[in-house]
């Protein structure tokens, strides 16, 4: 055994640096991220790390370009035949990776599966009543209410093979009551650009190019040449970057901000920056009559618009942008970025940084000496989340609102805010459906038990006018709907239910010979990538 160690060590010495990088295959992308997907089931966990692997293998009916605009996927065309019936014409001659022919049955099956109680993708089919097969390559989707953004939502529903799912006893997403592991947790059978070759959770997942994929002939992919994808997650920040610097990794999805300058200056490496569809803001308990974590007794200062505005005025967003975020943020006065349908520049205006005005507003509201408050914050969820909170605490303390930061890892943090056990907290919100309704509904609608309404509204903001506008967003279409969104944005600006901070920017780090378009949903589309 000892002899072996020494032989191995000696061999390592002799072979030297070049050998360690492994045989460099021109078109293999070795890629890493902090976390692996927890499951490969297409309808089980609606999380970015899962979609990251799913979207390489599975296709939706309607898919996205790198700029996130819609394009035909497994459906070649779609029309709103009636207000509550959409017709989808399917692509012919497509086969799943294991050989099954793709037909309308698979579409009906997959939409049913996404509608199942154990599905985590319900929000993307919340308006769907049922899907009906018209013929082998035509499907009608009947809706409960008119839904102008159905195509946007369906871009998140991946299509599975019905016979494959039935044969493997996976007709419903994983049920936690089950004692058995479901086939779909570690196996994939899609129609997409890459097919799964092997899967070792947390260690190595290998994909190979699906030469039969219809999309290779289409826009964006004609130059793409990636033959193999090897995904090896690395949890430790330092090791992830070391892997890139030492040549063991070609692409890092989530490089730590403090390493970016070093990576930019390293020979042969490149940092690609772009905006993310995620906005960071501060929300407040505006429901209770007395805050849980404050020294104000008998009243809730957050219910007073003047206090909310004072806290807003106190924030120097440019300082956060420059120092805390090192330039990697887009300060904003609203709560979703321009890529989202319904955004308008006119309402994206911040209250200016003005500590004097902030102090005056506090005095006017009856708190000339300020008050004490606890700001809750995750410390491993968003980019520099804890540091942002500390900066804000300092700014608020300067106007007399003595702020204590309570930063925790995401697991206890989310558990706590979901019990409404919070007074002021920092949250980030991504918009996968790319429509304003998704944000308004989850964050600002009155919580009433309906699907999606106010489920992330832990400050329990409730405003009947806002609710009315949200109802209009759900049912109306065209200019009327846009008008409702803009009106709601104006209300957001004036009523200050949140203090918006910035849209996140996401840097990707990679080898200079890898060409890949940046995508604002933080999903590298390797079907558009090229390695020289």
């Amino acid at each position, binding site marked *: 055994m000892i002899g072996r160690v020494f032989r191995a060590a000696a061999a390592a010495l002799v072979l030297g640096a070049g050998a360690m990088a492994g045989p460099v295959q021109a078109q293999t992308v070795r890629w890493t991220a902090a976390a692996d997907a927890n499951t490969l089931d297409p309808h089980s966990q609606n999380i970015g790390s899962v979609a990251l692997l799913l979207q390489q293998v599975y296709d939706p009916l309607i898919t996205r370009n790198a700029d996130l605009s819609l394009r035909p996927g497994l459906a070649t065309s779609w029309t709103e035949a009636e207000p509550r019936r959409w017709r989808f014409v399917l692509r012919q001659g497509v086969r799943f990776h294991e050989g099954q022919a793709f037909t309308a049955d698979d579409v009906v099956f997959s939409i049913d599966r996404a509608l199942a109680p154990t599905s985590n993708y319900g929000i993307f089919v919340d308006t769907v009543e049922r899907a009906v097969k018209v013929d082998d390559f035509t499907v009608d989707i009947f809706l409960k209410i008119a839904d102008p953004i159905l195509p946007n939502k369906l871009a998140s529903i991946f299509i599975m093979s019905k016979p494959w799912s039935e044969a493997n006893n996976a007709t419903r997403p994983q049920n936690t009551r089950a004692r058995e592991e479901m086939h779909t947790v570690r196996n994939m059978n899609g129609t997409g650009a890459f097919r799964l070759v092997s899967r070792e959770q947390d260690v190595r997942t290998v994909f190979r190019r699906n030469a039969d994929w219809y999309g290779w002939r289409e826009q964006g992919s004609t130059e793409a040449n990636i033959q193999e994808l090897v995904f090896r997650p690395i949890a*430790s920040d330092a090791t992830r970057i070391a892997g890139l610097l030492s040549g063991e990794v070609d692409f890092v999805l989530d490089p730590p901000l403090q390493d970016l300058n070093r990576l930019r200056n390293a020979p042969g490496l490149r940092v690609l920056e772009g905006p993310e569809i995620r906005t960071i803001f501060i929300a407040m308990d505006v429901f209770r009559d007395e805050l849980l974590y404050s020294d104000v007794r008998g009243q809730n200062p957050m219910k007073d618009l003047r206090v909310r505005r004072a806290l807003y005025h106190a924030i120097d967003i440019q300082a956060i942008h420059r120092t805390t975020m090192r330039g990697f943020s887009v300060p904003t006065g609203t709560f979703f970025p321009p890529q989202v349908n319904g955004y308008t520049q006119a309402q994206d205006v911040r209250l200016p940084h003005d500590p004097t005005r902030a102090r005056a507003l506090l005095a006017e509201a009856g708190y000339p000496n300020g008050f004490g408050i606890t700001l809750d914050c995750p410390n491993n969820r968003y980019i520099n989340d804890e540091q942002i909170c500390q900066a804000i605490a300092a700014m608020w303390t300067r106007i007399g609102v003595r702020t204590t930061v309570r930063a925790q890892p995401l697991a206890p943090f989310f558990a706590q805010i979901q019990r409404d056990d919070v007074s002021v907290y920092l949250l980030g919100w991504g918009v996968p459906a790319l429509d304003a309704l998704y944000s308004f509904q989850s964050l600002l609608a009155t919580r009433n038990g309906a699907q999606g309404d106010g489920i992330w509204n832990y400050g329990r903001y409730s405003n009947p006018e806002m609710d009315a506008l949200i109802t209009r967003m759900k049912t109306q279409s065209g200019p009327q709907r846009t008008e409702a969104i803009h009106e709601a944005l104006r209300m957001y600006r004036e009523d200050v239910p949140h203090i918006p901070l910035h849209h996140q920017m996401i840097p990707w780090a990679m080898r200079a010979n890898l060409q890949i378009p940046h995508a604002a949903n933080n999903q590298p589309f390797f079907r558009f990538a090229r390695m020289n």
Partner: protein
Amino acid sequence: MFAFIISRLLQALPVMLTVALLSFAMFAYVGDPVAIMLGQDYTIAQRDQLVADLGLDQPFFVQFAKFVFNAAQGEFGLSYRLSRPVAQLIAERAPATLELALCAAFLALAIGVPMGVYTGLYRNSWLSRFFLTFSLIGVSLPTFLIGILLILTFSVWLGWLPSFGRGDTVNIGGWSTGLLTLSGWKALILPSITLGLFQLTLIMRLVRAEMMEVLRTDYIKFARARGLTNRAVHFGHALKNTLVPVITITGLQLGAIIAFAIVTETVFQWPGMGLLFIQSVGAADIPVMSAYLLLIALMFVTINLIVDLLYYAVDPRLRIGRGKGAH
């Protein structure tokens, strides 16, 4: 002897139960698995359903009793995070951790003992001083820093060794081993050094102290008076007598190496049980965390038992004491 084993096993039971209870109670504070499982979009009804499915709505002691009952049968349920059986997950990860731990322990012994002997014999040589300084670094630098420094040196600057992972593995009857491939050996070097460095310095200092102690005793003087060679005195008489505490400590430290491989595994993305545990903590994956903690407790209890038995075999006084009690 048999009665001794039985009594130790009976003592182990409350230990295991206490560990189970403590770990289980602790989980109330690690976060809400439901929040993590549901993701961003759900209804209140879906949430309640999931809470009921997981049995989280039942009183604490009912949950605990169920857990102990199932654990006693080796049934730990499905991981919340990965939707796979916990026993299977741990069985998949155990080989990586065990290979790493054994390799680290081997390094610690193979290097630590000779260094200890040398520094014990030649207290004032410059090499001894160097070893002692070096051991101070090993004791005082935190593991993750050592790991990162090694990665920086051997992976990033020199490019000799991989910075993460296990290399290629070969599966032999369910045991995935990295010991049969070159890349597996290369991948093992840095993590083993990182993990074993503390134990190495500990063993070195222990052997040194014991050697110095033993070298002062009468029988060493008599051995020298008999005209034995230095070699016979140092290794035949002195080292042999220092090894009893060294074996004890090494046995106990092996448990510690396996349990505390967590940090090393995280730094090197070594796919062992420690990495699994850390990732489970992040997702509040209670079934995996409790199974892991129980397994570690069981391991410590077992190692302690073996060490006790070794004492029993080695030290005649223990046997006599027992014998008297039996009369």
